[in-house]
């Protein structure tokens, strides 16, 4: 069973800083990492490969440095990596991104056959979760989002059964293969990679494709041109009039706080009622 995992390199949003004066991003300070959800997707693919055979292929769209994110996937156990990288892809929103990835997957599907596509639930930079379902729609595959468990794969009948997280719990759903899953972090633990994988990853060079390496591409659907959404204005989040600051010694602060909480009427009543 060949499994393709679509992965993205993202700035570590925990470290990213915004200059409050200019409203611009200080990206340089944020290290680029493999989108954490995608790491779980790769781990799941490796787990399925170990059970059912085949290979794990990772695919990413991004600048040349994104090769590092692909190497990270090789550490986890991916067999092959493809990076589609071209100025024409730049500035893509989720619709244009899913188009470019779809074109690459289509080619890989033709060359080696793909039985399952995995994505992360969302990328932590944009946090949209739109690319996965977009790829699925274009590939004509059923998308199964927010997957927390792959219960079984029946390679003979080409069926997969997964658990999808929903608000009230989860649903068990069955789909024919090929299909596309987007995975939650809880689906597995990313394992500490064995040393031979580390050595392989350190040496690994992914295949790099430009637009010209893809077939029948409609340039108009790529990059900035192919993106229906654009970012309008950016502004710092609205500041309200600000809080009433409670000053004084700790004791004074505490007693004023109690007053405030008392004023929030129901408060003590709730507790009193429960305690009775």
């Amino acid at each position: 069973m060949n499994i393709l995992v679509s992965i993205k390199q993202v700035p570590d949003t925990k470290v990213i800083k915004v200059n409050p004066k200019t409203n611009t991003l200080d990206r340089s300070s944020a290290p680029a990492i493999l989108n954490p959800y995608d790491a779980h997707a790769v781990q799941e693919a490796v787990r399925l490969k170990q059970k059912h055979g085949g290979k794990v292929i990772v695919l990413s769209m991004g600048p040349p440095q994104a090769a590092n994110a692909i190497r990270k996937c090789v550490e986890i156990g991916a067999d092959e990596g493809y990076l589609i990288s071209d100025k024409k892809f730049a500035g893509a929103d989720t619709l244009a991104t899913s188009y470019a990835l779809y074109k690459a997957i289509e080619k890989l599907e033709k060359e080696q056959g793909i039985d399952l596509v995995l994505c992360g639930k969302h990328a932590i930079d944009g946090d949209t979760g739109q690319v996965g379902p977009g790829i699925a729609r274009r590939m004509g595959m059923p998308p199964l989002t927010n997957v927390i468990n792959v219960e079984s794969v029946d390679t003979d009948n080409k069926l997969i059964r997964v658990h999808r997280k929903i608000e009230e719990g989860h649903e068990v759903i069955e789909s024919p293969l090929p299909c596309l899953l987007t995975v939650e972090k809880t689906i597995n633990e990313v394992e500490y990679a064995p040393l031979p994988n580390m050595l392989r990853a350190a040496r690994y060079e992914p295949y790099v494709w430009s637009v010209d390496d893809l077939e029948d591409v409609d340039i108009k659907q790529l990059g900035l041109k192919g993106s229906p959404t654009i970012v309008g204005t950016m502004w710092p989040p609205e500041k309200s009039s600000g809080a009433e600051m409670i000053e004084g010694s700790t004791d004074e602060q505490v007693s004023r706080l109690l007053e405030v909480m008392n004023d929030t009427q129901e408060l003590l009543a709730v507790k009193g009622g429960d305690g009775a």
Partner: protein
Amino acid sequence: MSIEEYKDVWVFIEQREGEIFDVGLELLGAGRELADKLEVNLCGVLLGNNVKNSAEDLYAYGADIVYVIDDPVLENYRTETYMKAVGDLVRKYKPEIFIYGATSNGKDLASAVATEVMTGLTADTTMLDINLEKRLFEASRPAFGGNIMATILCKKHRPQMATVRPKVMKKPEADFSRTGKIIEEGLGLKEEDLQTKIIDIVKSAKKSVNLEESDIIVTAGKGIKDEKGMAMVKELADTLNADLGASRDVVEAGLIGHAHQVGQTGVTVTPKLYIVIGVSGAVQHTVGMQNSDVIIAINNDPEAAIFNVAHYGIVADAFEIVPKLTAELKKALDKEGVTTNG
């Protein structure tokens, strides 16, 4: 495609077993304002099995028209059926704006529909507006580590779509005197033709905590540092009979489960009292709690952004003030206990 042909504001109404999710009603409230500005109809889109009866309820929350597809195949959400249903409706009736609740299924559906009808989609928005001059939908969301809000536009494609987090918009008062119109359509799909099958729906034993329902929440941020700080905050919460909330950093540090995370990627809460300790106040956190009735923030940094959304602020070391506050509260509650008993 001529974009002038597209009008009306649509809201996807998510339901399960005929019960309508609150987020759909909240979005009708927000959608009403948009529709009024544009002087167009506000429409609900209700899909399911035996849901027609619920359609009329939507008038009370602001809908002028409700599009209904009632079909056994739509009993439970599946991307392939819902995407087809919504896609058909969009192609036929051409909405100008289409908003969905950012639930698991809402996001899934919106993403699939965006690709199906080839249009733009803005995820997880927290503010919606109209630029009347350009007749454009302005959907805004926090971006990049939370220090920035960005407005996303979709100029040349229709519908202009967005997902909106539950509880960010206010559910409108119901007005049962309002009336409207139902437009029913068929689906044209048979169960045998479908690829995916729902085998089972497993409802988890009631969520260990459901902050969305809480009246009082005491939230811990990274400023509480470790287990000891967490225990300290928990004691305050217990004393107040409150539920525990947490910032993402605290959840990621493994100090508490994800169900307690408040904010963009956690839950959105609206308690009567929200006490927030050692949280810096990144927008991703504040979008999830800013509609609380009373917000009290404790932070040792006078510049902390959390004070911008708080009603009461205390600049203090949490490790000093929280134990004292807990002790004083215990005393006060004891007294109260005595009076009620006596």
